[in-house]
């Protein structure tokens, strides 16, 4: 399963959500499908995409928030699973693309390549709904289900360790950040 195909399969679903991605392939691939003002790409600070999604979800409980995380990033901040589970915002969807690799720095294997089970960790942390998916169809079904559900959900998507040729996009970090904030302000006025 390719991450890009997963993203493509759910791209229309992302339109009405606030989306926070990690750096690297996830950001570059989502951006390549077409940037939208409701997408925020956290191009560093590995591990904090899920914390950012939690902050958004706690402050905007009516707003659907989707975090596009990765195994390397999540392993840097496993405590985030326990914090998310503690407050379990009903409209927070936490997608983890698990390619068992730190791809953007040369493909170093992460601990999920030797058996660390992120689904098990998320479940044991107390995340109420957890699933692992291995096909684009099941990915789409899981994300769509979670995006219309009312329970904090973590979806582990097992994907191949391949990514785009380049990671830098033409969207500056600050432009993205201010646009994202403005987008949320425009929602509040509606």
């Amino acid at each position, binding site marked *: 399963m390719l991450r890009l195909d997963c993203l493509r399969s759910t791209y229309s679903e992302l339109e009405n959500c*606030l989306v*926070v991605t990690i750096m690297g392939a996830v950001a570059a691939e989502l951006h390549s499908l077409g940037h939208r003002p409701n997408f*925020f790409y*956290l*191009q*560093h*600070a590995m*591990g*904090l*995409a*899920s*914390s*950012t*999604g*939690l*902050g*958004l*979800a*706690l*402050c*905007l409980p009516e707003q659907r928030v989707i975090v596009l995380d990765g195994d390397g990033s999540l392993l840097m*901040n496993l*405590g*985030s699973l*326990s*914090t998310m589970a*503690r*407050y379990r915002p009903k409209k927070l969807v936490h997608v983890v693309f698990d390619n068992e690799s730190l791809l953007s720095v040369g493909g170093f294997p992460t601990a999920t390549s030797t058996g660390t089970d992120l689904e098990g960790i998320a479940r044991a942390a107390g995340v109420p709904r957890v699933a692992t998916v291995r096909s684009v169809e099941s990915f789409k079904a899981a994300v769509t289900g979670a995006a219309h559900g009312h329970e904090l959900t973590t979806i582990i998507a097992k994907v191949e360790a391949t990514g785009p040729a380049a990671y830098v996009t033409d969207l500056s*970090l*600050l432009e993205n*950040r201010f646009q*994202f*904030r403005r987008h*949320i*302000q425009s929602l*509040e006025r509606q």
Partner: protein
Amino acid sequence: MPVSLTHSKLIYDGLKECDIRLLSALPETWLVHLIRFADEDPEVILVRLAKEEEGVGVSAGAHFAGVKSAMLMQNHGFLASINGIVSFAHLYKIPLLMLISYRGSFGERDPWQTQGGNVTEPLLRSLGIPYFFLDALDTVKKRIRQAQTLAESSLQPVALLLTRDLMWED
């Protein structure tokens, strides 16, 4: 416990007067009353963290959502947050109001706190983080207000160091 209840209340009231609606926290002795006030306050979202660096992301999310927030941490929690501060708050110009209990400074009895006390101010300076002290009753609210104002106008982290003189009664 000789953590000052009245001074903690003063700090909390100062945060409320700045319209702080989300507090992230990881407990430490000097912060117990502040965390309890937040926990009992229906107007404030208290986020109890596993590690302080998460608070950078939580506060960034709150900022994007238009909610003013503050972080309660020990100075060792500040040390644990530095990558998030640099590669999120500084990189993306995120306002952070950090209330940091200044352990390991003059009067510290716990040997394990002393090394962190030595490096707190040098690190704040080297990171270019504006900081000031909460050390006297008559300036607490004003300094919280000033720190919050600067964080919002400059879109950057600003630190208030909670001192022994204010927090501890012995």
